[in-house]
């Protein structure tokens, strides 16, 4: 055991930070030999960069067919690199790319798979991982046997800062694909811009009812001169429009004050708001993960606290 293949992802022409976090995970595994993989078109320089910044010997699949992400192209390229490097652990980030392709590779290799891990280490005949389950409410210690494919949660560890001089090696593979990339569509901007608000009062599924947003959440936002936000289930249910959504697939915000009411604190929500200067969480459940990132917590029914707070804020302003 001990050869790790780290798959880089390219975003806006650069290797994304999450890929250097994977390098850190791989470098942190006792006795592991680390190899990199860069897939794309015209990516020679990026492969050199990856090889020199910790990924060690880096394979590069440089092909017009890989200009845009394609699940079939990626799974073939990764399998070819796994074979060339003799990797017994393949690490991929748990991003839309990672969760699309990584399980396919595990099934193709008939090997162990685990996803969205926050820690990786050498195990007994395989590897050991820690991952979050139940939307962050519990942790699971998972171990694998034999060859393993794993995805790591972006942001769970610091990017690797050291260097390496593994050099690069071009790899060719059959990149024929069933799926066909058509285009990337970028959402149009709308009126609601939470990124400019000093105060955001966000409601989650715990608000329980679409009417309660204008009745309970918005008045506190108004009293504080701020904006209203929401978690994803609120938007999925059609209670509020997408621009109100805070999180990895919504807006990334960093107001002076963020109040989270009836929000449990799933990682996809946390990444959207944890950079806020001061976070207040109101939740009935004392074990809700939101309390881990909050500065101040209130374990109570939001319908007791929010209206009283709205009134008190109004009073304090005079």
């Amino acid at each position, binding site marked *: 055991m001990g050869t790790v293949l780290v798959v880089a992802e390219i975003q806006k022409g650069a290797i994304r930070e999450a890929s250097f976090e994977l390098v850190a995970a791989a470098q942190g595994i006792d006795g592991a030999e680390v190899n990199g993989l860069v897939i794309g078109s015209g990516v020679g320089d990026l492969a050199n960069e990856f090889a020199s910044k910790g990924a060690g010997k880096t394979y590069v699949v440089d092909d017009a067919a890989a200009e845009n992400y394609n699940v079939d192209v990626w799974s073939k390229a990764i399998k070819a690199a796994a074979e060339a490097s003799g990797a017994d652990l393949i690490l991929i980030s748990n991003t839309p790319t990672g969760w699309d392709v990584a399980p396919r590779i595990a099934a193709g290799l008939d090997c162990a798979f685990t996803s*969205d891990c926050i820690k990786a280490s050498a195990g007994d005949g395989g590897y050991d991982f820690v991952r979050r*389950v139940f*939307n962050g409410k519990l942790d699971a210690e998972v171990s694998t046997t034999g060859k393993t494919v794993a995805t790591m949660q972006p942001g769970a560890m610091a990017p690797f800062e050291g260097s390496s001089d593994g050099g690069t090696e071009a790899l060719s593979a059959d990149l024929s694909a069933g799926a066909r990339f058509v*285009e990337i569509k970028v959402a149009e901007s709308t009126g609601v811009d939470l990124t400019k608000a000093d105060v955001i009062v966000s409601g989650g599924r715990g608000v329980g009812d679409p009417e309660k947003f204008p009745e309970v959440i918005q008045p506190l936002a108004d009293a504080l001169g701020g904006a209203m936000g929401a978690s994803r289930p609120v938007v999925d249910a059609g209670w509020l429009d997408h621009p109100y959504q805070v999180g990895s*697939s919504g807006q990334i915000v960093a107001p002076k004050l963020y109040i989270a009411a009836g929000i449990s604190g799933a990682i996809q929500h946390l990444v959207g708001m944890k950079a806020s200067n001061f976070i207040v969480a109101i939740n009935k459940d004392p074990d809700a993960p939101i309390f881990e990132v909050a500065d101040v917590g209130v374990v109570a029914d939001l319908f007791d606290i929010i209206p009283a707070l709205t009134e008190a804020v109004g009073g304090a302003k005079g």
Partner: protein
Amino acid sequence: MKVMVCLKQVPHQDARLDVNADGTWIQEDNIKFEINSYDTYAVEEALKLKDAGSADEVIVVSIGPDRVTQALRTALGMGADRAIHVNDDAAAGADALATAKILAAVAKEEGADLVFAGLMADDDNASAIPPMVAELLGFPSATGVLATDFSGDAVKVERELEGGALEVVELPKPCLIAIQSGANQVRYASLKGIMQAKKKPVDVKSLADLGVADSASAAQNKTKINKIYVPPKGDSAEILSGSTDEVVGQLVTKIKELGLL
């Protein structure tokens, strides 16, 4: 077109989560279960195809113990035609790959032209099974799908990326599509639907029936959960205590200190 929907029954989102006696999963006695939220969107997507006349049959498939019948009945009540329940003790606690092998065996046996699944299960959050099933079937696949278009020869789907971007991909049929939450507005099972569902068939199968007893049981897991637990508390919040008025008073003080009042 024959459409199969993979459906997992998971603990209700508001269920109390206590770790079981051997510390490897949650205590499942005395808690409520429901259809995995992502799968409700997948069922809806399949039923829309049936409403449009493009799907001849919608089959819902779930692997799990007796309680899973309830989830299958709910999907039948929404309008699915038929259900397959893989109920076999040997599949209890099977890892994602073993589970995918079972689902792929069902899809093969049924000759499904299209397979829908959810992006992830709300309990294990693995996002593992759908691409695995696709690979085992040799189908192209897409995950995190928010929109589908079946008007052409190939299925056109929109996958959610980060920061509001969408990736448009075309998949030749047969293919597998894993649906992201919010893809549609999920219908409820009507009273009439629930009555009709009672007459719809639920086929119960074992791993041996599907020919996967030697390849897809929990005994062959390559991935093992050793322990689950409440995450160690890090740098947690200062929890305010007292009556509502006292708590609100403390919050107002904090907000004043921030210079926001």
